């Protein structure tokens, strides 16, 4: 089920009413969450429900056995390793099988050996990378004794399948989400209202910005050879906004929706395009995934507490995997390596990237140095997104080279007053609210203390959604 569908518009109020008015106990609430989450997922394709159930059940069992065998490190290692392998195997088959076989066949062909390997027609289950990583983090955390294994199967299934974040994150940690299912939940009016606001802003980003940008990008992207440079740059910028608004919009809706049920999800985006460097960008973009890679791959490899060469190796390993996580295509790996290179350069040049506060903290406008840093980071991000969006590595490089070789101005200019207005609004609101948890977190002081003022803002946003919404598009991150 998509958040931007009429089905969800009916589904959410019904679930909300049953959750708060019918199910009384914590157990009933958890059971309801499991049921409705499976309905939510099964709405897309019920056949893949068994995969979530299998992943959940194996991880649940591994947690129990890990706890039972505490003290026997060797057996614990076997248990956690076998669960990790099983999960990665499922992910590998459904997401990477064809990619690997095609590449192996192509590699052998170069040596004159023909392999008769059959590629299979596999449907990629939506959100498989998200819930698999969530399940993996639980097993590793239990193994590391950061969290106690849960013995309540319903509670665990609710943790893996919680519908707001099931298909596109945030990838929650058991240390944050699981204890919330273990506690009694009471309705929190302020939290629910704040959740609604965050959802509204998420819908604005998705429907007004991302979908309108997508319509233009999809129309022109493959015709890049015939477009003038200015248009190629505009398309790059539009895709940069599209992917941000699409994914952060989804995260906002997910976090807001979870708030309605008394659950706090972690922040996934923190104004990444207001970053002063690429390392800062990655502390603000898809935070749940970046921290996942940091905690479960980068740190175990040695992190930054080892020789310079090893740090560089660690960065490249993590980013190659991160690229591959985004999809079974070399363009994603290339995108990951591009960012790894930038991170290594920042590291070698010892540029201070550990900022305590958001840019221009306590001020309205940034200074010249900050503006330069913002533009440089934004430019590098655009280059990365062009590689990410391209269908092949050669197309990515050709696209980038066409920016410099094609005539600067020519035919084929985008007409889109509405997305310019909406884009400016997005930037202004997010800039002014950059110190807040989300863009519609309104203070209860000044003019905003009057409900009528707040409501006028909400109505204005809803009117923009109704009038400017682009044609419905699926969320980009579903495919990951």
């Amino acid at each position, binding site marked *: 089920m998509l958040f931007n569908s009429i089905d969800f518009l009916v589904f959410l109020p019904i679930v909300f009413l049953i959750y*708060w008015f019918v199910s009384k106990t914590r157990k009933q609430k958890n059971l309801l969450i499991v049921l409705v989450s499976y309905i939510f997922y099964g709405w897309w394709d019920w056949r893949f429900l068994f995969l979530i159930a299998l992943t959940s059940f194996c991880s649940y069992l591994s947690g129990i056995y890990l706890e039972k065998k505490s003290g026997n490190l060797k057996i614990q290692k076997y248990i956690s390793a076998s669960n990790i392998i099983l999960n990665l195997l499922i992910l590998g088959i459904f997401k990477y099988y064809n990619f690997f076989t095609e590449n192996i066949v192509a590699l052998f062909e170069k040596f004159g050996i023909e392999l008769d390997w059959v590629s299979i027609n596999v449907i990629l289950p939506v959100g498989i990378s998200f819930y698999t990583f969530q399940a993996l983090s639980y097993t590793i955390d239990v193994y590391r004794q950061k969290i106690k294994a849960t013995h309540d199967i319903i509670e665990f299934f609710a943790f893996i399948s919680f519908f707001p974040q099931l298909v596109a994150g945030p990838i929650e940690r058991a240390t944050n989400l699981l204890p919330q299912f273990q506690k009694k939940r009471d*309705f929190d*009016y302020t939290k*629910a*209202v704040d959740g609604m606001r965050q959802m509204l802003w998420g819908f604005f980003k998705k429907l007004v910005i991302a979908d309108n940008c997508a319509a233009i990008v999809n129309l022109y992207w493959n015709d890049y050879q015939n477009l003038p440079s200015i248009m190629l740059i505009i398309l790059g910028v539009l895709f940069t906004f599209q992917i941000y608004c699409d994914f952060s919009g989804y995260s906002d809706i997910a976090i807001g929706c979870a708030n309605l049920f008394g659950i706090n999800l972690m922040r996934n985006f923190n104004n990444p395009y207001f970053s002063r460097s690429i390392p800062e960008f990655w502390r603000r973009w898809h935070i749940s995934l970046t921290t996942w890679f940091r905690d479960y791959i980068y740190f175990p490899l040695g992190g930054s507490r080892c020789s310079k060469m090893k740090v560089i190796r660690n960065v490249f390993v993590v980013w190659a995997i991160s690229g591959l996580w985004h999809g079974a295509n070399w363009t994603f790996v290339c995108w990951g390596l591009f960012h790894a290179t930038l991170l290594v350069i920042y590291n070698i040049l010892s540029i201070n990237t550990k900022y305590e506060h958001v840019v221009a903290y306590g001020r309205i406008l940034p200074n010249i140095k900050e503006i330069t840093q913002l533009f440089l980071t934004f430019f590098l991000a655009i280059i990365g997104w062009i590689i990410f969006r391209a269908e092949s590595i050669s197309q990515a490089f050709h696209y980038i080279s066409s920016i410099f070789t094609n005539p600067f101005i020519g035919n084929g200019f985008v007409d889109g007053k509405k997305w310019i207005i909406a884009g400016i609004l997005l930037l202004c609101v997010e800039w002014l609210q950059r110190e807040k948890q989300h863009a519609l977190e309104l203070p209860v002081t000044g003019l905003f203390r009057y409900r009528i003022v707040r409501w006028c803002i909400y109505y204005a946003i809803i009117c923009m959604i109704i009038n400017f919404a682009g044609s419905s598009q699926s969320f980009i991150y579903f495919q990951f």
Partner: protein
Amino acid sequence: MKRKLHFIGIFLIFVLPFAIYYTAKTIWLLKDDKYKTSIYGNEIYKAIEKSKKKTNYKKLILGDSTANQFYNCKEEDPDSAYSLSCNQAIGMVGQFILLNNYLKAGNMPDTVYLVYTPFSFWDNLDQVYTYHYFLKPFYYDEYKPLMSRTVKEQIKKIPKYQICHIPFIQTTGWAPDIKQEKRNYSFLSPICKEYLFKIDSLSKEFRFTYKIIPTFVAEHWRDSICHFKRHEFEECEYKEKLSNYLDNISYLADSCFVDEVHLKSPELYKPIINQKLHLR
């Protein structure tokens, strides 16, 4: 409990203006069928309305949006032909219904032209546009007897087909997502095939000549069209018509098209199409 009810109450008050506005707007649009002239794809309602009129035209044009560029169904040209061309998304079944209406109104055309771009024959009522362009205007009891079992089965695959005439849906451009089925044909969809045959039968019953005329196609499609499998219509009675159709496609440079299908300046090419249709 009090806080929960307070939240729901405030929420309901918040959405009330929208509920009032949209209910009023829907009622206003439904009154005198105003939505039929203002809605996205209103040319289909226009074509349906025109198909029920008695006229003196001897030539009738059915067609898709490429045909509509030349023979706009919203305009009438007494020296030319009567055009019911609107959009390919109505499928061949939609074209058949329009033709059936036209004949039922007592019209006796000499020639009926189906002016189509080759890709319009793909339509098997499984497109994202099917809900809005076909179901909303055509899925009425009046037309159901004209729908074959295949069509009815296909309609049942469309999500939420049962509620397509709810006023709020009928008067807006909303449509659910439809997962397009994988095509196992290169040119002619099963429904298209079935209804071309039905149109052919009508032509024999009402004794009019029935011709299929291609519109212009972008050059880069040439290879794809050459790979159309002609055996898909080998056993049909109208195989000659379709073979001629494919052989007579005129290709134009890609730059002549605004998208991959529609012409930038159709008026430049209208004389050529007129010639094909023997029109002035």
